[in-house]
């Protein structure tokens, strides 16, 4: 309820014109936390079709490249998929502001992520929250080490 979310002013007469989140979100692919929506799945399945641009001349860049990040202690290895990210975001949102575009070139740790750096700039704020370990740590170690080059 917007009127009781501790954010919206219940005395605002226009409040009833705003949409209740539950009304829009409950019909989308469910997730356990955050908006309780699996936004990547909702986009993939066509449940939502958000616009990619407002200016006709803007170039839309999408990349299909997975990067494995293996420095994960005993946790499963992290698979970073470019495809779903570049569906939502432009390269310049990450490169080189947040990540250098070179495999293994970024000193990422879970501590820094929880501080809001690297993946934590979006995950934990707008994209699915950091409590969903397994969505990032998604590849079992033995399997990942088998497919890794070197």
């Amino acid at each position, binding site marked *: 309820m917007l009127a*009781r*979310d*501790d*954010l*919206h*002013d219940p005395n*605002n*007469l*226009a*409040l009833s*014109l*705003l*949409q209740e*989140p539950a009304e*829009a*979100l409950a019909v989308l692919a469910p997730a356990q*936390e*955050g*908006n309780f*929506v699996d*936004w990547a799945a909702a986009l993939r399945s066509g449940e*939502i079709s*958000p*616009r*990619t*641009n*407002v*200016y006709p001349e*803007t170039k839309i860049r999408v990349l299909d490249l997975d990067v494995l990040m293996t*420095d*994960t*202690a*005993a946790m499963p290895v992290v698979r970073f998929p470019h495809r779903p990210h570049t*569906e*939502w*975001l*432009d390269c*310049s*949102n990450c490169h080189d502001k947040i990540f250098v575009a070179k495999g293994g070139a970024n000193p990422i*740790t*879970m*501590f820094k*992520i*929880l*501080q*809001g*750096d690297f993946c*934590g*700039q*979006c995950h*934990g*704020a*707008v994209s699915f*929250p*950091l*409590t969903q370990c397994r969505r990032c740590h998604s590849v079992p170690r033995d399997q990942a080490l088998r497919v890794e080059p070197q």
Partner: protein
Amino acid sequence: MKPARSTIRRLGWRFLPFYLAVLALGFIWPVAAEYGDVVLNHRSDRAGVRPVIFPHWFHRIRFRCKVCHHELGFEMRAGANDVKMSDLAQGKFCGMCHNNEVAWGLENCDLCHSGKPGLAGGIYGGHRTLGPGRW
């Protein structure tokens, strides 16, 4: 594997309770706001209008992140954009869309200025980290 890596690996586990504590903070924080809601209040309170609430959930159904954070140039950090009504009227920031063409126009003050007076600017909605959301 290189030796430097194994040190990090051991440290990683040692800090696990700490990670969990940080996460727990996110849970006990008393917020019921929708995940990703941003309050903009650099100037509103001082100017005697309600703070602005920007709902990510509502906009991301209609627009991808790149529209605002790439095309329109919104910095991806709560509080990093110094927004003035005069900018909006010139078609910048929210005014890029809230112009009675892409979306309803600026005369609907109370739809944007909908926050409780005195709200601190920043990102709301629980699960928050110690990161940019604290600005």
